[in-house]
């Protein structure tokens, strides 16, 4: 992890309140592991904002993030103009474990938990895994990256209000999909709780969100209880990705 400057190359509203931002930085584009995040400084804000890396392109030396306008920080971020610069700490956190033996992998994403799974999916394809995706959104207007995930493999869209794809929660789909060996999931804590309970016998990795201070492991803002000797893990440094048995949601 370093303190870096990224140049905004492109900003696109890809769904309701949801933006895709392409950032130029060769270091991140070459070193980021799927599941890592950028701890972004946004002008006028005391705390940095953690945003996952949604994909990287070492050729164009760019990294893509996708974020939803959630409050003043992300609203401000959506106003950054092309060619302005953003300061970040990153790539931060540990990233997903790609060294698994299983052949068929299920990706389960909810809302702004979807972006890191895209980076992950592309990496898993390189490792010749079969990929199935279940992506959950509030409603039709919020759906993004459906086509991108379809290119990785069979993709199910679920909306809470049934306005697009299946109706309900991502967990409602778990019984419907083809057989799989392991899963990777990212989304709100209640979703991850439901997922890891339903899939307790599978090999699974989950990526967690928590409000952060430092983003580097120094302030103890982002701990999650665990069965380790210390009794906790830090999401910013030991995570955000954990094996589902490693932490107590």
């Amino acid at each position, binding site marked *: *992890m370093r303190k870096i400057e990224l140049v905004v190359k492109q900003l696109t509203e890809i769904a309701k309140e949801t933006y895709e931002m392409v950032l130029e930085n060769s270091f991140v584009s070459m070193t980021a592991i799927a599941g890592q995040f950028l701890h972004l400084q946004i002008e006028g804000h005391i705390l940095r904002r953690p945003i996952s890396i949604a994909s990287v392109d070492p050729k164009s030396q760019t990294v893509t993030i996708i974020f939803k306008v959630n409050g003043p920080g992300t609203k401000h971020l959506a106003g950054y103009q092309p060619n302005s610069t953003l300061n970040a700490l990153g790539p931060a956190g540990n990233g997903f474990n790609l060294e698994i033996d299983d052949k068929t992998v299920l990706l389960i994403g909810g809302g702004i938990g979807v972006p890191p799974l895209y980076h992950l999916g592309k990496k898993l394809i390189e490792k010749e895994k079969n990929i199935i995706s279940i992506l959950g959104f509030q409603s039709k207007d919020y759906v993004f990256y459906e086509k991108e995930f379809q290119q990785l493999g069979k993709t199910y869209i679920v909306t809470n209000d049934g306005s697009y794809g299946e109706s309900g929660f991502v967990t409602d789909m778990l019984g419907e999909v083809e057989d799989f060996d392991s899963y990777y999931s990212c989304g709100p804590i209640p979703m991850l709780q439901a997922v890891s309970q339903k899939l307790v016998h599978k090999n699974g990795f989950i990526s967690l969100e928590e409000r952060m201070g430092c*983003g580097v492991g120094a302030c103890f803002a982002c701990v999650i209880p665990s069965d380790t000797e210390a009794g906790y893990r830090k999401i910013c440094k030991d995570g955000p990705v954990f094996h589902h048995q490693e932490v107590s949601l």
Partner: protein
Amino acid sequence: MNPLQVELPGLKLKNPIMPASGCFGFGREYSEFYDLNKLGAIMMKAATGEARFGNQTPRVAETASGMLNAIGLQNPGVEKIMEREVPFLATYNTPIIANIAGSTLEEYEYVAETFNQTDQVSALELNISCPNVKEGGIQFGTDPAMAARVTERVKKASNLPVYVKLSPNVTDIMAMAKAVEAAGADGLSMINTLTGMQIHLPSKRPLLANKTGGLSGPAIKPVAIRMIYEVRQQVSLPIIGMGGITTAEDVLEFLLAGANAVAIGTANFQNPFVCPEIIEDLPAVLKRYGFASIDEVVGKGVLA
């Protein structure tokens, strides 16, 4: 002579800049960004008698020019800190200040005594003001008599100079300072965080799981400056000042108000390099305002 050097009881500092307790862990994370030898000193995260898990999350919230935290003194306990953290920091040529906390007088004594077993710690910072501990910790910091008692007991238990960290959540900061001075404190450290709260509109509940948290950052700087200035009028103990520092100019403001050295907390989260950058900027800022050394500045705003 090094114009940035400062001498305080138990502390020979190459410069007056140190990371504040709780905002720098035990140094490991920031040591990946820069050489910790650059720092004047390092204030470790609070140590208690036993390991503590701290409060539920969320533990931090952003406010206008500030932040709230309710970490709740999470730490592995004084013994593990002695075993695992102090030796790491001792590899640097930078004095270590141990921040000590507790729920009872006995716990404070125990933590202080445990730090006697090493010569790698240069001073204690007595945290009587953490607003996030429920079992009585808060009273130590807001009642002059209680503050004096814990100071006396820790002074007896410890071989090290003791800097008492004062809480700003009091009517009369001078009374607190005088009480701990009379009780034998070697220095003061001020200010800790102001108690604050944020309500999360969607849930209609306090955002922090602990409800209240400690307000830090630039928002509180005017309160810190006022309290240091006030205490400096009548108390001659050295003061390590803190509260919202982000620039070398801020450091100068604290020194003019009466601080002898300063600590930097929240600003580390925005810019991990803030401490070495301020150290680098200091000589030019001193010069711009007509000073040749830190010694020349201290208290000038009060005594001139």
